[in-house]
């Protein structure tokens, strides 16, 4: 995954303009386009399904209410992600859920599906996934956010810096620290590939 294709960004701009003119169906298209990604970012930071869902929906609602403030200098998704990341990080601060234990979540569903398909081979995969999830959960929320935006959403450092309201240098150091910590925690799992 790389940065958003230019055509998609242009479409977003058009949809934002229509939303500003009061066309709610245009905003509905934006929601359906980004709901999965917004949820994913929130989930990686919060590691909790209901909270992530709530944060993603709240982020869209806030984006709609303050759409007039969106000047369009950056992409819509950059602006939306910024709201999602801020809300999610605030959420971890308020609830003190820096290190929650994952409950019923989509990851468990994926693991269960794999178990049913090939129980022997999936044991190692399942263990590895659990190790990775545990390792990522140990990271501070801002490092987790930077890592998610880079590794899963494939955003550039500049985009991440804009979303997280920090410098590119800070993004680099957050990613470096996160990766170092993950390698230390995962140890032989990371080498096994």
């Amino acid at each position, binding site marked *: 995954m790389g940065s958003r294709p230019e055509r998609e960004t242009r479409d977003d701009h058009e949809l934002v303009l229509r939303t500003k003119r009061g066309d709610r169906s245009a905003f509905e298209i934006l929601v359906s386009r980004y709901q999965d990604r917004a949820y994913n970012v929130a989930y990686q930071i919060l590691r909790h399904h209901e909270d992530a869902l709530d944060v993603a929906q709240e982020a869209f609602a806030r984006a709609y209410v303050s759409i007039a403030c969106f000047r369009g200098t950056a992409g819509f998704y950059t602006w939306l992600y910024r709201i999602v990341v801020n809300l999610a990080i605030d959420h971890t601060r308020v609830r003190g859920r820096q290190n929650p234990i994952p409950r019923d979540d989509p990851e468990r569903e994926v693991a269960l599906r794999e178990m049913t398909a090939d129980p022997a081979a999936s044991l190692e995969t399942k263990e590895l996934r659990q190790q*990775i999830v545990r390792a990522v959960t140990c990271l501070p929320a801002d490092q987790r956010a930077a890592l998610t935006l880079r590794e899963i959403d494939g955003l550039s450092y500049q985009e991440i810096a804009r979303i997280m309201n920090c410098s590119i240098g800070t993004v680099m150091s957050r990613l470096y620290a996160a990766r170092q910590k993950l390698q230390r925690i995962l140890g032989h799992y990371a080498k096994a590939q």
Partner: protein
Amino acid sequence: MKALLFGRSECSTVVQRLGAYVDGQLHDSRQKQLEAHVRDCPRCAAELQRLLALREQMRRNLAVSLPGEDAARFWDNVERKIHKAKSPPRWGADRLREMFWFYPKLWWASAAVLGTTVLLFTADMVLRPSMPPPTSLAPIDAQPRTVIESVEGGPNSSVVLFSTPDQQLKIIWVLERERS
């Protein structure tokens, strides 16, 4: 072996930049420089492999997608939240928190206003000339006593002579009518 010639400090710099290298975020010249180093340094090459493996594992294992039923209800819930957000503004701590959340510059503005107020107050306290001690002031309710010593008047002017015995002052008040 060329690899053995690399110093520890160069390797530690390379390791710090490996993340940016695999992300393709380095400038061309630095990218080539790093590639050349990794080609000749087994230690950094192993580090690069570990980093690539970690990235692959993360991409494969961390990405989640919105469960079907939540995806179907997503827009309805967003609409509900929009409606709630658009209902008449409530004032109080919640509203204030929301305002600060939406406009982070408000933090700076508030801090600047507070700082300036404290600074002005402190400067006023420090720089204001000290007042004479209250004992040297006359009591507020003590009106100066004035005695009219003489009044002399003519058709076009009059002179009144006052004195204040307490402070040993004499006041001569000359009134003159304008000549037309």
